[in-house]
């Protein structure tokens, strides 16, 4: 379980997160939704400690993460898998080396075991025969999928995905959504997903937190989101013809 309590973050005069308190439970896909620029990425980076928060607390299973020293944080980070919005693959390494990297650093596995694990993770994101390619040789969506494979390589206890399926075709996007949801239940992971894709919301939204103007505006799940009478939320949810029809 991850908890953010009264978290605020600003960049200069720009108050991006305003007293956000939110809880993410294990075995569930916790979605953070909101318009572009609403602060989803900033919230996620505050949760994992890449941004220092101005006030408030972040807890990982009762451990006060936001007060930890860099070295204490590293211990918890070994239990974290994260997919960055831009993929953030190591461009000096091949696909296989990227996925193997966390295994090399933190397990005593033999090369054969590591390659087997990498192939397993890559096959789960439907990537085959790309092991020896470099990130520069991949399409945008393929990069994203390699990044997911890397994030799940170490069987993380906490999984963060910043827009896992932006830039993917609907079919692959759906595969990724299902994968995230499956492994979340299978390994009882605390999963946090940033998205503005309503398909994902309907597909895997076990718990949904809507961020608007830096505040936590609404919370619910995939069923209640379509029935809410929150005006700002509805503006976001029913922005397209398709979702209006769904209603």
């Amino acid at each position, binding site marked *: 379980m991850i908890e953010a309590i009264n978290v605020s973050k600003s960049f200069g005069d720009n108050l991006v997160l305003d007293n956000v308190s939110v809880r993410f439970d294990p075995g569930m896909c916790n979605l953070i939704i909101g318009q572009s620029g609403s602060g989803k990425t900033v919230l996620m980076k505050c949760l994992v400690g*890449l941004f220092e928060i101005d006030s408030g607390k972040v807890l990982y299973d009762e451990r006060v993460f936001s007060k930890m020293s860099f070295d204490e944080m590293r211990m918890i980070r070994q239990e974290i898998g994260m997919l960055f919005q831009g993929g*953030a*693959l190591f461009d000096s390494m091949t696909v296989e080396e990227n996925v193997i990297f966390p295994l090399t*650093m933190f397990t005593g596995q033999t090369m054969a075991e590591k390659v087997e694990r990498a192939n397993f993770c890559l096959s789960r994101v439907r990537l085959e025969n790309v092991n020896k390619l470099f990130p520069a040789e991949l399409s945008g969506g393929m990069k994203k999928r390699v990044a997911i494979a890397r994030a799940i390589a170490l069987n993380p206890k906490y999984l963060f995905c910043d827009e896992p399926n932006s830039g993917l075709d609907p079919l692959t996007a759906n595969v990724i959504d299902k994968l995230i949801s499956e492994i979340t239940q299978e390994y009882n992971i605390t999963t946090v997903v940033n998205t503005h894709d309503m398909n994902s919301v309907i597909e895997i939204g076990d718990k949904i937190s809507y961020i608007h103007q830096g505040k936590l505006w609404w919370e619910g799940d995939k069923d209640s989101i379509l029935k809410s009478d929150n005006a700002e939320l509805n503006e976001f949810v029913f922005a397209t013809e398709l979702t209006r029809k769904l209603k």
Partner: protein
Amino acid sequence: MIKGFLFHIGRYILLMRQVFKKPEKQSIFIRQIMVEVDNLGVDSVGIVAFLSTFMGAVLCIQTAFNIDTPLIPLYTIGFVTRQSVVLEFSPTIISLILAGKVGSRVASELGTMRVTEQIDAIEIIGINPATYLIFPKIVAAVIVNPILILMSMIMAILGGWMAGIFTGLVASSEYVYGIKAFFESYDIVYAMIKTVVFAFLIVSISGYHGFYTKGGAFEVGTSSTKGVVHSSIAIIVFNLILTNLLLS
């Protein structure tokens, strides 16, 4: 201005404290040093050899032209060339060249990794990115630069020898006699101490600028320039300090 300078010095020292932590895995660390030796060292052999040979030749010819009285023996040419090369040209000038070559490479590599969130990704995996990325580069430069500088000395002296013979300004025997004359091994020690300090300055300062790049491709360029300029300035300043400490 002064505030900015102190800010950078403070942050630089804090970064260095992160850099010199125990690496996560010894075997990976060794492998990375090898890679960096290749990237930063082997890659520079050609340019160092080329520059040194030509500069040695020029030093020899200039010295020869400045000796216009028969009272000064011709072997002085060999002696002066050797002293200039060993004391100043190879350790300082070649280090400045390497600051341009190695510094821009290190700063832009780390800067690109920063702006594409690769450094964040390393941090999230639970690895200390400063140790993982910068430590092996510093070790590699500290190992490889002295070798490059020794090679530079040899090439420069050889260049001088060839120039002396081809121009007929000094005979081989006299030049060689000059090269061996009044030789003090402490000069080499002094040159090597300078080289090692400069190697550290080049990689740590340009690494610092790369590591703290903010923004995008444009800022990577800015960091790379800053890395080169600031490590060159540091080399010049430390050259004076070390010369004072070691030769007086």
